[in-house]
């Protein structure tokens, strides 16, 4: 029976990993143990036989095949997926810095979300000077659930109000066209909602009055803007819309903040 330590020394010798001291020890052992000597000789022969196994040349076409397949993969993806394919390809392959692309995509999404959600909330509601101007980016409201819409066409003014909602917010899109100043007031239930912000998308400077349970926009000409409310859970109920001008009420309506038949 050959000791495990001796077997290890024999194998290390074959691998050329023994120190001089270890080789000397091994030779002493081999001189004393014929069985170990036989094993050593056999394993040396086996290792020698393995050295005779020659390398095989890869098929001549293989290199070009691999390069072509990489090329075709990229072309194929780009062709079948268009711009998205190119983006996916960039994400998958190493040819473009993947992280830069992911970062850029994240930035675009982030800016979009900022425009839709954060900006109205961040506006200092007392500083109406920030509420004018035209936004370069128009939020795509179709990504939200539409709730309701009302429209009015009067001699003094015409307009439309649409509501959209999410899990914790309500957005009212207000469009009004008038010659003389028109006030659009939106009443809400303060127990279940808080005015969050207003963003003007179109129209000249006007005024915004913010109360505990109502906001009022006053302006003339064509205007369009978004009013955002944060909801606190529970049933918000409808918003109450009142359009007035020249000292009299021109239009009054309730507008739902959730789709008919839906439950928040």
């Amino acid at each position: 029976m050959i000791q495990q330590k001796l077997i290890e020394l024999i194998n290390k010798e074959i691998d050329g990993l023994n120190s001089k001291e270890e080789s000397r020890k091994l030779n002493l052992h081999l001189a004393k143990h014929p069985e170990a000597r036989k094993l050593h000789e056999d394993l040396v022969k086996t290792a020698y036989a393995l050295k005779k196994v020659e390398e095989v040349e890869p098929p001549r076409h293989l290199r070009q095949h691999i390069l072509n397949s990489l090329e075709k993969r990229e072309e194929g993806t780009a062709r079948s997926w268009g711009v998205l394919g190119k983006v996916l390809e960039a994400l998958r392959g190493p040819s473009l810095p993947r992280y830069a692309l992911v970062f850029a995509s994240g930035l675009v999404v982030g800016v979009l979300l900022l425009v839709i959600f954060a900006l109205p909330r961040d506006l200092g509601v007392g500083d109406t000077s920030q509420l004018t101007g035209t936004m370069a980016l128009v939020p795509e409201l179709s990504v939200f659930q539409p709730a309701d819409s009302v429209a009015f066409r009067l001699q003094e003014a015409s307009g439309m109000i649409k509501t959209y909602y999410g899990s914790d917010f309500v957005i009212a899109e207000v469009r009004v066209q008038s010659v003389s100043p028109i006030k659009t007031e939106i009443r809400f239930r303060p127990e279940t909602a808080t005015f969050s912000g207003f963003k003007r998308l179109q129209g000249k400077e006007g005024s915004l009055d913010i109360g505990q349970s109502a906001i009022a926009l006053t302006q003339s000409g064509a205007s369009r803007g978004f009013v955002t409310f944060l909801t606190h859970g529970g049933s918000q109920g409808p918003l109450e819309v009142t359009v007035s001008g020249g000292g009299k009420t021109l239009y009054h309506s309730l507008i739902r903040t959730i789709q008919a038949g839906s439950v928040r």
Partner: protein
Amino acid sequence: MPGRLYIGEQEDKELVRRCLKGEKEAFATILDRYEKPIYNLVLRMVNDRDDAADLTQTIFVKAYEKLDTYDERFKFFSWLYKIAVNTALNFISHRRHQERLRDDIVPNGVQLEEEFDTSERYQKLEDAILGLRVDYRIVIVLRHFQNLSYDEMSKILDIPAKTVKSRLFTARQILKDTLVKSGLQG
């Protein structure tokens, strides 16, 4: 052959960097360096030239796609070999039920008619290698055909160096017994 792998370590890293910047020629250079070793590694594992060529292609495509996951703290060839070994092992595990010994590995330049005896001996050796259990075969291939150290094998195979040694010693013993039995080794 394997000696040159160490020499090119820094160049490998530079090639990877260039490749990640979009220089496709850099990947072609990587391919030039490693096509043959990887093809031979896979060939010794699967024993079929067509399969080896297909797998080599798969390995390089995988490597290309995952190139940005390569960590420069490690040797590039270890990373590439790991992909190669895993791909080959995966292939073998799927093919295992129908794996058979084939006689199509003959080194270039060997003339069957003229050197029948050499070819026959060669075949027996091939058969003995292929008769090894796959976890033994891989250590023989990596150590004897790719000249990798225990430590490198350990990293590629994801097993402790101690296990590598023990598998290698056992594999050699089995191989030796098979060669003796087949009369190839006295």
